[in-house]
């Protein structure tokens, strides 16, 4: 009954039009061998295969702000540049992620412009808003959000990611304002930090306790703020594409990157967000069309999907 209710709610959600703004032709063609799934930007290329139930969010690093300072030696810097190259090389190993990025940003732009009552025909609609990117990796999401005018804080439990993100962001005056911190969502909750919108894209499937994680996201969001979460569905198709094909056949991801059983279905995600006082407003799927070589937003939430919810006024 409850699940039936949820299902019908989901149907309405996915039927909402979020495409006003979105040109599905955004994305550059992927290489044919990468026809599969998508994702993984919180997995840094240099990381060893992640253990089955990793929790990169619960780090043990002391809270610290990592800035590349002049005290760093050149060898270190060169090492980071080498890694940074793979994060930011649009033709490199992260190409699928770069290809998909505009699609999820199009979703974010259209939903959040509506949520915050901003003009979608403005180049920097998010000016004056504070955004938090949880699991920011090399900053592939944080930088575009900053270019769209937001005051962005990016956090990642992996210190190296933060360094790479900092190094890259400093190259552009617009993105150099991003505040990158090597910390966790939980730590920020302890500090009572609040943001207008909180993003956790492709992160939740890697945390030990998704329900607790959602509570943290909620606690970091101001009343009537927005939360955006994306992940992979626990479906047979997702198993075939994101795990069997991507990890075992194409070796596109290290084996063991994803544990199918830790994936969440859209119903489950809506439920745990609801319990964390976030009411999901829209869900969309990301679908790759191998014929056109393009990613687009769709009602098909069978594999990759993204949800946007509003923090319920407490």
């Amino acid at each position: 009954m409850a699940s039936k209710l949820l299902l019908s709610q989901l149907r309405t959600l996915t039927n909402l039009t979020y495409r006003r703004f979105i040109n599905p032709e955004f994305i550059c063609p992927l290489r044919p061998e990468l026809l599969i799934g998508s994702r993984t930007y919180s997995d840094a290329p240099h990381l060893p295969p992640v253990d089955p139930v990793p929790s990169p969010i619960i780090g043990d690093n002391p809270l610290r702000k990592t800035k590349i300072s002049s005290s760093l030696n050149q060898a270190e810097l060169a090492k980071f540049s080498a890694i940074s190259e793979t994060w930011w090389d649009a033709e490199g190993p992260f190409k699928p992620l770069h290809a998909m990025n505009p699609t999820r940003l199009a979703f974010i732009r259209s939903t959040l412009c509506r949520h915050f009552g901003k003009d979608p025909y403005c180049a920097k609609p998010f000016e004056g808003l504070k955004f938090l990117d949880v699991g920011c990796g090399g900053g592939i999401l944080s930088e575009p959000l900053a270019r769209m005018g937001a005051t962005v804080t990016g956090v990642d439990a992996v210190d190296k990611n933060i360094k790479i993100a900092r190094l890259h962001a400093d190259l552009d005056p617009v993105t150099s304002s991003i505040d990158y911190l090597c910390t966790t969502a939980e730590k920020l909750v302890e500090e009572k930090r609040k943001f207008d919108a909180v993003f956790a894209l492709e992160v939740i499937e890697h945390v030990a306790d998704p329900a607790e994680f959602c509570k943290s996201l909620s606690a970091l969001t101001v009343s009537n703020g927005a939360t955006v979460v994306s992940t992979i569905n626990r479906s047979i198709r997702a198993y075939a594409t994101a795990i069997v094909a991507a990890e075992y056949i194409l070796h596109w991801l290290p084996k063991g990157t994803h544990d199918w059983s830790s994936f969440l279905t859209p119903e489950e995600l809506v439920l745990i967000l609801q319990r964390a006082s976030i009411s999901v407003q829209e869900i969309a799927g990301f679908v790759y069309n191998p014929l056109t070589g393009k990613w687009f937003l769709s009602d098909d939430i069978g594999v990759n999907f993204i949800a946007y919810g509003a923090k319920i006024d407490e």
Partner: protein
Amino acid sequence: MNRVIFKVLRPIRKYGLRTFSAATSDLLNASHNHSATTGILEKTNSTDNVPQYDVAIVGGGMVGVALACSLATMPLTKHLNVALIDSNPALMAGGSIKKEDPPDPRVSTVTPATISFFKGMGAWKYIQLHRHAFFDRMQVWDYTGLGYTRYSAGDVDKEVLGCVVENKVLHRALLSCMEESNMQKTIYPARLSALDLSFSLKSDNVSSQPHANVAKLNLSNGDILYAKLVVGSDGSKSHVRELAGIKTTGWKYPQNAIICTVEHAVENRCAWQRFLRSGPIALLPIGDNFSNIVWTMDPKQAAECRSMDEADFLKAVNEALDYGHGPHPQSETKGGGGLFSWLKLDTTPSANEPFEVPPRITKLASERMVFPLSLMHANSYVSKRVALIGDAAHTVHPLAGQGVNMGFGDASSLSRVISEGVAVGSDIGEISLLRRYESERKAANIAMMAVLDGFQKAYSVDFGPLNVLRAAAFHGANYISPLKKNIISYASGEQGIPLFS
């Protein structure tokens, strides 16, 4: 069957519209040795006093300025900071065009698609202040006397088929439109001398590829600037293309085009094109009693035509447009079953219009200019932080005059792609974004180039059966109305390839 259709298509396309894109490259080549300074606003920014821009447009010809205008008028791109690099003094002078001057022989036939692009940017109102000539009819025939085709705008429920405008008018209109906009723009009256595409603002030892976040441009006057995106609109000999290491494919035609302005006793409202053994000759209305001639022939003949005295030249042109080189095609209005009467499935109102002889030319109104013809296509239109538009990306056989329309199509497409990139917070020099522009335009441009090249080849052979096929093509084009409508739409730049759309 396919073969027949293909043959049918070829000769027809040609009547598309013609243009001389010569002006752009002329402007660019004509430039030079200006040392900077006249009323330039220097925008200095942050580090080292080197100005930084979002977009640096190298080449301020028609297509380059059109891109700047297009960016200035779209909501998501109007805030971009644009540098325009061209040593052509016209960019700075803001000069005006004298109405009494006879028309310049360098003209373009702009298609309805280009007209709506101009209207969208608010540039068309400036064209209307100057001489321009709409035409609503077109007649195409050849020297064999076996067939002819007449098109009229009414066939596709349009008011006009195209508009002939002098290149200097197009350029002036776009400059006025750009000046009127609030966009932050800086004009550099210089040429590009060096381009560093892997430059990092954080130049400390790590200026390796991954950190390249801007392009660094060195100009001939010593200025240096940074830009996220460098656009090469610097003509067929593009320096940007060369510096970015983009290769091209192409060939020269063993033909030259001779162009000039002529005067008639009466006003001309029709575009005329006739295929001669040596190449096509076209007569385009450019307003008042003036018309423009574009006559393609082998280089030796072209040199003769340029040097002969005015009376002889006029006689040669009048002959070429009338009885010279072969008989008139027969009008088939009386239903007299000619060779191709079985094709008469008609149809469009213009199908029954009789063949007409173009108005006689009475006077030469400009000097005669000769241009070599060639076809060139860049192997890619984009690389990291670089995009090529217009003649820098493709030069076509000018006989169909699609050149500048293809360039305006590029400018429109690139500005749209940049706008979409801004919408999602992309770095506008990112290759993955720029590839969207390339994939959109390359297919369209290659199709057009293949068609135009096919024309040239189809008419470079004088062989009986082929002549009959070409004639059949004319008849097909004249009498099969869906095909005819399709062809007109394609030539107007409004749709893709006929039969495939």
